[in-house]
Protein backbone atom coordinates (compact mmCIF):
# COMPACT_ATOMS: atom_id res chain seq x y z
CA UNK A 1 0.00 0.00 0.00
CA UNK A 2 2.76 2.40 0.98
CA UNK A 3 4.58 1.63 -2.26
CA UNK A 4 1.55 2.78 -4.24
CA UNK A 5 0.56 5.83 -2.30
CA UNK A 6 4.03 7.04 -1.32
CA UNK A 7 4.05 9.21 1.75
CA UNK A 8 6.81 11.80 2.14
CA UNK A 9 8.66 9.43 4.49
CA UNK A 10 7.51 5.91 5.32
CA UNK A 11 8.92 2.87 7.06
CA UNK A 12 7.64 -0.66 6.62
CA UNK A 13 7.90 -3.27 9.33
CA UNK A 14 6.67 -6.83 8.85
CA UNK A 15 4.72 -7.06 12.09
CA UNK A 16 1.10 -8.25 12.34
CA UNK A 17 -1.82 -5.91 11.84
CA UNK A 18 -2.57 -3.96 14.96
CA UNK A 19 0.99 -4.13 16.27
CA UNK A 20 3.00 -1.62 14.26
CA UNK A 21 5.45 -1.05 17.14
CA UNK A 22 5.82 -4.73 17.96
CA UNK A 23 5.03 -7.01 20.81
CA UNK A 24 3.10 -5.96 23.93
CA UNK A 25 5.26 -4.92 26.90
CA UNK A 26 8.40 -5.00 24.76
CA UNK A 27 9.58 -1.50 25.57
CA UNK A 28 12.98 -1.88 23.93
CA UNK A 29 11.38 -3.01 20.68
CA UNK A 30 8.92 -0.12 20.72
CA UNK A 31 11.71 2.38 21.40
CA UNK A 32 13.84 0.86 18.63
CA UNK A 33 11.06 1.34 16.09
CA UNK A 34 10.53 4.90 17.28
CA UNK A 35 14.23 5.58 16.94
CA UNK A 36 14.14 4.32 13.35
CA UNK A 37 11.21 6.61 12.58
CA UNK A 38 12.82 9.69 14.09
CA UNK A 39 16.06 8.87 12.32
CA UNK A 40 14.25 8.56 8.99
CA UNK A 41 12.54 11.88 9.68
CA UNK A 42 15.94 13.53 9.93
CA UNK A 43 17.88 11.71 7.25
CA UNK A 44 15.42 11.33 4.34
CA UNK A 45 16.60 13.62 1.59
CA UNK A 46 13.74 13.39 -0.87
CA UNK A 47 9.99 12.67 -0.86
CA UNK A 48 8.72 9.14 -1.31
CA UNK A 49 11.35 7.37 0.80
CA UNK A 50 10.11 3.93 1.89
CA UNK A 51 12.45 2.21 4.32
CA UNK A 52 12.10 -1.52 4.88
CA UNK A 53 13.02 -2.09 8.53
CA UNK A 54 14.91 -5.35 9.19
CA UNK A 55 13.16 -6.43 12.39
CA UNK A 56 11.53 -9.87 12.57
CA UNK A 57 8.46 -10.68 14.63
CA UNK A 58 9.63 -12.41 17.82
CA UNK A 59 12.98 -13.23 16.21
CA UNK A 60 14.93 -10.01 16.69
CA UNK A 61 16.61 -8.90 19.88
CA UNK A 62 16.74 -5.34 21.08
CA UNK A 63 19.02 -3.28 23.26
CA UNK A 64 18.40 -0.10 25.17
CA UNK A 65 18.38 2.79 22.71
CA UNK A 66 21.22 5.25 23.22
CA UNK A 67 19.29 8.46 22.92
CA UNK A 68 22.24 10.54 24.12
CA UNK A 69 24.21 9.75 20.99
CA UNK A 70 21.05 10.18 18.97
CA UNK A 71 20.67 13.73 20.26
CA UNK A 72 24.32 14.50 19.52
CA UNK A 73 23.92 13.22 15.98
CA UNK A 74 21.04 15.64 15.54
CA UNK A 75 23.41 18.50 16.25
CA UNK A 76 25.58 17.31 13.39
CA UNK A 77 22.71 17.81 10.96
CA UNK A 78 22.62 20.94 8.88
CA UNK A 79 19.40 22.75 9.51
Amino acid at each position, binding site marked *: *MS*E*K*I*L*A*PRAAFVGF*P*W*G*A*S*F*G*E*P*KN*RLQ*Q*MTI*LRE*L*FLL*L*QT*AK*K*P*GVLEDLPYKWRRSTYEEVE*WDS*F*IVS*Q*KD*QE*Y
Partner: protein
Amino acid sequence: MNIFKNLKIWRTIGRITDTKIGASISDAFRKPFNKIAASGVSATNDDIPWTPFKKPLAESTVAIVSTGGFYLEGEEPFDVDSAFGEAGFRTIPSDFDKGKLKIAHTHYPHARVNNDINVLFPIDRLKELAQAKVIGKLSPNFYSFGFGGNLIKEFIGQPDGSAHQVSQKLLDDEVDYVLMVPA
Protein backbone atom coordinates in the same frame (compact mmCIF):
# COMPACT_ATOMS: atom_id res chain seq x y z
CA MET B 1 -24.44 -2.49 0.54
CA ASN B 2 -27.09 -2.42 3.26
CA ILE B 3 -26.47 -6.12 3.55
CA PHE B 4 -23.31 -5.26 5.48
CA LYS B 5 -25.27 -3.15 7.93
CA ASN B 6 -28.24 -5.46 8.20
CA LEU B 7 -26.23 -8.61 8.73
CA LYS B 8 -23.57 -6.81 10.76
CA ILE B 9 -20.98 -8.55 8.62
CA TRP B 10 -18.02 -6.46 9.77
CA ARG B 11 -18.91 -6.99 13.43
CA THR B 12 -18.96 -10.73 12.83
CA ILE B 13 -15.59 -10.58 11.06
CA GLY B 14 -14.27 -8.43 13.91
CA ARG B 15 -15.41 -10.97 16.49
CA ILE B 16 -13.76 -13.77 14.52
CA THR B 17 -10.55 -11.74 14.14
CA ASP B 18 -10.49 -11.27 17.89
CA THR B 19 -10.48 -15.01 18.58
CA LYS B 20 -7.14 -16.79 18.84
CA ILE B 21 -7.73 -18.69 15.61
CA GLY B 22 -8.95 -15.56 13.84
CA ALA B 23 -5.89 -13.60 14.94
CA SER B 24 -3.63 -16.43 13.75
CA ILE B 25 -5.32 -16.37 10.33
CA SER B 26 -4.97 -12.58 10.22
CA ASP B 27 -1.27 -12.83 11.12
CA ALA B 28 -0.55 -15.69 8.71
CA PHE B 29 -2.33 -14.21 5.70
CA ARG B 30 -1.37 -10.59 6.28
CA LYS B 31 0.85 -10.43 3.20
CA PRO B 32 -1.73 -11.72 0.67
CA PHE B 33 -4.44 -9.66 2.40
CA ASN B 34 -2.24 -6.58 2.02
CA LYS B 35 -1.71 -7.37 -1.67
CA ILE B 36 -5.44 -7.66 -2.24
CA ALA B 37 -6.08 -4.39 -0.41
CA ALA B 38 -3.33 -2.62 -2.34
CA SER B 39 -4.64 -3.95 -5.67
CA GLY B 40 -7.77 -1.87 -5.10
CA VAL B 41 -5.76 1.33 -4.78
CA SER B 42 -5.58 3.06 -8.11
CA ALA B 43 -4.20 6.32 -6.77
CA THR B 44 -0.59 7.06 -7.49
CA ASN B 45 1.14 9.99 -5.99
CA ASP B 46 3.10 11.90 -8.60
CA ASP B 47 3.40 14.95 -6.43
CA ILE B 48 4.50 13.82 -3.01
CA PRO B 49 4.33 16.58 -0.41
CA TRP B 50 7.65 17.41 1.16
CA THR B 51 8.72 19.48 4.11
CA PRO B 52 12.45 19.27 4.83
CA PHE B 53 13.51 18.42 8.36
CA LYS B 54 14.43 21.71 10.00
CA LYS B 55 13.44 22.05 13.62
CA PRO B 56 15.53 19.93 16.01
CA LEU B 57 13.54 17.09 17.52
CA ALA B 58 14.39 18.27 21.02
CA GLU B 59 12.52 21.51 20.33
CA SER B 60 9.63 20.01 18.43
CA THR B 61 5.99 19.26 19.14
CA VAL B 62 5.03 15.72 18.17
CA ALA B 63 1.61 14.15 17.52
CA ILE B 64 0.26 10.74 16.60
CA VAL B 65 -2.31 10.23 13.87
CA SER B 66 -3.61 6.67 13.97
CA THR B 67 -5.98 4.59 11.89
CA GLY B 68 -6.66 2.28 14.84
CA GLY B 69 -10.29 3.29 15.37
CA PHE B 70 -9.54 4.89 18.75
CA TYR B 71 -12.11 7.03 20.53
CA LEU B 72 -12.75 8.05 24.10
CA GLU B 73 -15.52 6.56 26.20
CA GLY B 74 -18.62 8.72 25.91
CA GLU B 75 -17.86 9.77 22.32
CA GLU B 76 -19.50 8.36 19.22
CA PRO B 77 -17.73 5.13 18.20
CA PHE B 78 -16.64 4.77 14.58
CA ASP B 79 -19.27 3.24 12.33
CA VAL B 80 -18.20 -0.38 11.99
CA ASP B 81 -21.40 -1.54 10.28
CA SER B 82 -21.27 0.39 7.00
CA ALA B 83 -19.82 -1.50 4.08
CA PHE B 84 -17.05 1.08 3.71
CA GLY B 85 -16.76 2.14 7.33
CA GLU B 86 -16.51 5.88 7.89
CA ALA B 87 -14.04 8.61 7.05
CA GLY B 88 -14.47 10.69 10.19
CA PHE B 89 -11.86 11.20 12.88
CA ARG B 90 -11.80 11.46 16.66
CA THR B 91 -9.66 13.75 18.79
CA ILE B 92 -7.68 12.09 21.58
CA PRO B 93 -6.11 14.57 24.03
CA SER B 94 -2.54 13.41 24.65
CA ASP B 95 -3.18 13.31 28.41
CA PHE B 96 -6.04 10.86 27.88
CA ASP B 97 -7.06 8.36 30.53
CA LYS B 98 -5.96 4.98 29.17
CA GLY B 99 -8.91 3.32 30.88
CA LYS B 100 -11.26 5.40 28.74
CA LEU B 101 -9.66 4.72 25.36
CA LYS B 102 -11.88 2.46 23.25
CA ILE B 103 -11.53 0.86 19.83
CA ALA B 104 -14.17 0.64 17.11
CA HIS B 105 -12.40 -1.13 14.25
CA THR B 106 -13.16 -4.65 13.05
CA HIS B 107 -10.25 -5.18 10.66
CA TYR B 108 -7.37 -6.12 12.93
CA PRO B 109 -6.95 -8.27 16.04
CA HIS B 110 -7.25 -6.27 19.28
CA ALA B 111 -5.59 -8.61 21.78
CA ARG B 112 -2.13 -7.06 21.55
CA VAL B 113 -3.27 -3.45 21.73
CA ASN B 114 -5.64 -4.31 24.59
CA ASN B 115 -2.63 -5.80 26.38
CA ASP B 116 -0.40 -2.80 25.69
CA ILE B 117 -1.65 0.34 23.97
CA ASN B 118 1.92 1.19 22.95
CA VAL B 119 2.03 -1.48 20.24
CA LEU B 120 -0.14 0.79 18.14
CA PHE B 121 -0.40 4.10 19.96
CA PRO B 122 3.00 4.59 21.65
CA ILE B 123 1.89 7.19 24.18
CA ASP B 124 4.05 5.96 27.07
CA ARG B 125 7.16 5.79 24.89
CA LEU B 126 6.60 9.34 23.60
CA LYS B 127 6.09 10.61 27.14
CA GLU B 128 9.41 9.00 28.09
CA LEU B 129 11.09 10.66 25.11
CA ALA B 130 9.65 14.05 26.07
CA GLN B 131 10.83 13.49 29.65
CA ALA B 132 14.32 12.63 28.35
CA LYS B 133 14.23 15.75 26.14
CA VAL B 134 14.71 13.70 22.97
CA ILE B 135 11.55 15.38 21.67
CA GLY B 136 10.33 18.76 22.83
CA LYS B 137 6.79 17.97 23.88
CA LEU B 138 3.63 16.14 22.95
CA SER B 139 0.93 17.94 21.05
CA PRO B 140 -2.15 18.62 23.19
CA ASN B 141 -4.17 16.47 20.79
CA PHE B 142 -3.70 13.26 18.85
CA TYR B 143 -6.14 12.08 16.17
CA SER B 144 -7.55 8.75 15.11
CA PHE B 145 -9.32 7.53 12.02
CA GLY B 146 -11.07 4.18 11.80
CA PHE B 147 -11.67 1.75 8.96
CA GLY B 148 -12.72 3.63 5.85
CA GLY B 149 -12.23 1.41 2.83
CA ASN B 150 -12.67 3.11 -0.51
CA LEU B 151 -13.86 6.43 0.96
CA ILE B 152 -11.12 8.30 -0.87
CA LYS B 153 -13.22 11.39 -1.62
CA GLU B 154 -14.44 11.66 1.96
CA PHE B 155 -10.86 11.42 3.22
CA ILE B 156 -8.89 13.56 0.80
CA GLY B 157 -11.43 15.43 -1.35
CA GLN B 158 -10.86 19.17 -1.34
CA PRO B 159 -11.60 21.21 0.64
CA ASP B 160 -13.38 19.41 3.45
CA GLY B 161 -12.04 15.85 3.37
CA SER B 162 -11.38 14.61 6.87
CA ALA B 163 -7.63 14.37 6.22
CA HIS B 164 -7.58 18.10 5.43
CA GLN B 165 -9.54 18.80 8.61
CA VAL B 166 -7.01 16.88 10.69
CA SER B 167 -4.15 18.66 8.89
CA GLN B 168 -5.63 22.00 9.87
CA LYS B 169 -6.05 20.89 13.46
CA LEU B 170 -2.41 19.79 13.59
CA LEU B 171 -1.40 23.21 12.29
CA ASP B 172 -3.65 24.89 14.86
CA ASP B 173 -1.95 22.78 17.55
CA GLU B 174 1.43 23.97 16.19
CA VAL B 175 2.61 20.42 15.64
CA ASP B 176 6.02 20.02 13.98
CA TYR B 177 6.17 16.28 13.37
CA VAL B 178 3.48 13.60 13.11
CA LEU B 179 3.81 9.86 13.52
CA MET B 180 1.19 8.44 11.16
CA VAL B 181 0.58 4.92 12.39
CA PRO B 182 -1.55 2.51 10.34
CA ALA B 183 -3.32 -0.28 12.17
